[in-house]
């Protein structure tokens, strides 16, 4: 009897099996039901969220439940324009013989290769435009710049990272089905460590039970240590700071799985928390700055032989910089997760918006993106913050998206968008009137843009 790995065996078959993506489920079922009645305006959805939270499974379950024909194309398939046209386009344009709706899954669109899958995105956009069947796409990172055109034409559906409770629920169910002896604490620990990735949790559960026939806390601890870091970053940073000798600091570094990039961020974050004497702090920062210099040189030259120097300067260099206030080194202070990483993740979208905006402006003004950012955007921000009416007109004139408006002036955005829509209606009326008067529309200078404008201002944020 052939055994299936549990991640396959316990894959959701019905929508109900999918844990905790209620919002997404609701959105998707509504959308699929629209398709059963006709061809809705929103032809494609993009499901996004971290790995292992059920994007693909939910799609499969959806097809199962509604008995849709299911066609999948993923990163293991060639996805050049020709392939997409051959397989997906045909599927997208025809219903099956029985008139069944076909559900088309383009999995992992963020994995579309720039080189090997040349022309893929254009082809997909094209297919969506003419599709007569629903298209579902998935991605871990929907903010990948290359997906921008796609984002503008699809409904974005977010999948949440699963909570510990969600994961625990599923694991307990499996334990029951497999008739396994599972300690509560053990399941807890697995659920804790998987960080919302259900698939890896199931894998871990299976690995422990296959190996030992039961799941106890001790076994789990033992095995999870294999995957996890030997020491949490906090301890490593502390060890580095309190080192008396260079070798101690170096040894501390070896006890972590943090990459050098991560490590330097951890040190940067917590260095000023630990060291307060200005002279010590400056010495330490000078070393940290030098360490960063080496990191930069590694990137530029591709020469990894320089890495040890970077690491020594960021560890031993920093800890040995404390001369004036040696006691301060041993003081207990609370460390932080590197804020830079957190903030950067939080503001990723706004930075991307800024880039896109700079690109739009660069085209209009015949300047580089860098100049747009430094010499133009700040002033546009002033206008958007202080004068919604002019802002709305500029938004139309520059043909920028709703999210860009929101970026330019968070506090005025709703007002500006309202005005934009009002102006658009007026412009539409005007156009109608002019059309009726058989006057060329081109003179108004609006129509040629309104096509894309509709794209920008419809669809989900």
């Amino acid at each position, binding site marked *: 009897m052939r055994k299936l790995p549990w991640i396959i065996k316990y894959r959701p078959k019905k929508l109900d099996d999918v844990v905790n993506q209620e919002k997404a489920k609701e959105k998707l079922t509504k959308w699929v039901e629209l398709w059963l009645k006709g061809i809705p305006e929103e032809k494609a959805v993009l499901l996004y969220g971290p790995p292992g939270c059920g994007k693909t499974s939910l799609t499969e379950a959806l097809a199962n439940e509604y008995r849709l024909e299911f066609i999948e194309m993923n990163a293991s398939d060639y996805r050049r324009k020709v392939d997409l046209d051959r397989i997906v386009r045909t599927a997208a344009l025809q219903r099956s013989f029985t008139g069944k709706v076909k559900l088309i899954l383009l999995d992992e669109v963020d994995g579309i290769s720039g080189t090997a899958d040349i022309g893929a995105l254009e082809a997909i956009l094209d297919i969506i435009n003419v599709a007569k069947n629903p298209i579902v796409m998935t991605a871990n990172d929907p903010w990948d710049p290359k997906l921008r055109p796609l984002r503008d034409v699809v409904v974005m559906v977010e999948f949440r990272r699963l909570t510990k409770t969600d994961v625990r629920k599923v694991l307990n169910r499996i334990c029951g089905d497999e008739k396994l002896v599972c300690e509560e604490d053990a399941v807890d620990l697995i659920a804790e460590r998987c960080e919302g990735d259900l698939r890896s949790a199931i894998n871990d559960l299976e690995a422990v039970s296959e190996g030992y026939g039961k799941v106890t806390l001790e076994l789990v601890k033992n095995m999870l240590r294999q995957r996890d870091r030997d020491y949490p970053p906090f301890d490593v940073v502390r060890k580095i700071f309190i080192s008396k000798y260079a070798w101690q600091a170096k040894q501390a570094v070896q006890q972590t799985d943090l990459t050098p990039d991560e490590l330097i961020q951890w040190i940067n974050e917590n260095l000023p928390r630990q060291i307060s004497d200005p002279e010590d702090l400056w010495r330490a920062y000078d070393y940290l700055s030098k360490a960063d210099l080496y990191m930069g040189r590694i990137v530029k030259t591709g020469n990894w032989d320089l890495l040890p120097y970077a690491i020594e300067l960021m560890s031993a260099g920093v800890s040995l910089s404390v001369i004036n206030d040696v006691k301060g080194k041993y003081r207990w202070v609370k460390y932080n997760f590197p804020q830079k990483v957190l903030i950067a993740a939080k503001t990723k979208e706004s930075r991307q918006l800024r880039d896109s905006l700079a690109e739009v402006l660069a085209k209009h003004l015949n300047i*580089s993106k860098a100049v747009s950012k430094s010499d133009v955007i700040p002033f546009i921000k002033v206008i958007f*913050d202080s004068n919604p009416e002019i802002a709305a007109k500029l938004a139309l004139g520059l043909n920028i998206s709703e999210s860009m408006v929101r970026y330019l002036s968070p506090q005025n955005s709703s007002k500006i968008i309202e005005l934009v829509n009002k102006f658009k209606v007026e412009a539409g009326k005007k156009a109608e009137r002019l059309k009726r008067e058989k006057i060329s529309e081109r003179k108004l200078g609006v129509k040629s843009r309104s096509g894309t404008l509709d794209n920008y201002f419809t669809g989900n944020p």
Partner: protein
Amino acid sequence: MSSQTLTELLWVEKYRPRTLPEIVNQEDVIKRLQQFIKEKNIPHLLFAGPPGTGKTTAAHALAHDLYGSDYRMYMLELNASDERGIDVIRGKVKEFSRSRLPVNIPFKIILLDESDNMTADAQQALRRLMEMYVDVTRFILIANYPSKIIEPIQSRCAVFRFIPLRKDDVIRRLRWICMNEGIRCDEEALELIYEISEGDMRKSINVLQASASLGDVNVSNVFKVVGLAHPKEVREMIRLALEGKFMEARDRLRELMITYGLSGTDIIKQVHKEIFGTELTIPEPLRVEIADYLGEIQFRLVEGADEEIQLSALISKLALLGRAAKTVKTTK
């Protein structure tokens, strides 16, 4: 007019000269360029001069006057600071040169903005392209610093030097825009705008438009715009750092980098400005020392990997200097 229309453009775009005769203040250049148009032929061109003096505009106007209003079909625009890598350029140039030419047009134009940002290697490759495709294309190179263009390219180009705009010209232009837009403006405010933007026409018009969006163009509004456009956080960061409040200063730094999206070099430039500005009362010797150190840190920014770390080092230096200065003061 403008109040009735439903769309609006940035004034820099709206009032950009479309044809050569509209360009102000570069009479010599324009006269020579018009000669080319008469002959329906141009050599490779190199437009050199400070920012905001109309180089890019002149290139577009030239193309416009050569090909008519659809000129963009015959012109490929590349910005060297955005499209680095000579391979990208080569690819695009090749492709562009292949496309068909309309009758009567003996060549297309490739416009390379900020070409002094290209490495010497890339310039060497560019020079080859200029030779290879000379029968079907002409290059217009735009540069702030002509001396950064390698000689073999310079000697293949007719060089045009754009001179900085005179105060009078800038202010006259600003006044004219205001009139056109039906905006009231103080003479004093216009002078202030000119000064703030250091003779850069583009920047001047941006400041003007932003000021106008606050109502009239008067001195107070101009100051407001400048204040709003340049985050106060820079000054605040310096002050906190000099007072030894490292963590708070770093929070400001992060805001600048992440929320405002300023690059490390941008921040250093602003720090520089503030150090020598009137708002912060820093003893002269300290100013000079900081400026010296800013040079060092900016160099490390270029070589390093993470801007935040380098700027944090700057803050720690400021904190140290700040304390030293205080110590000196008190001892005296």
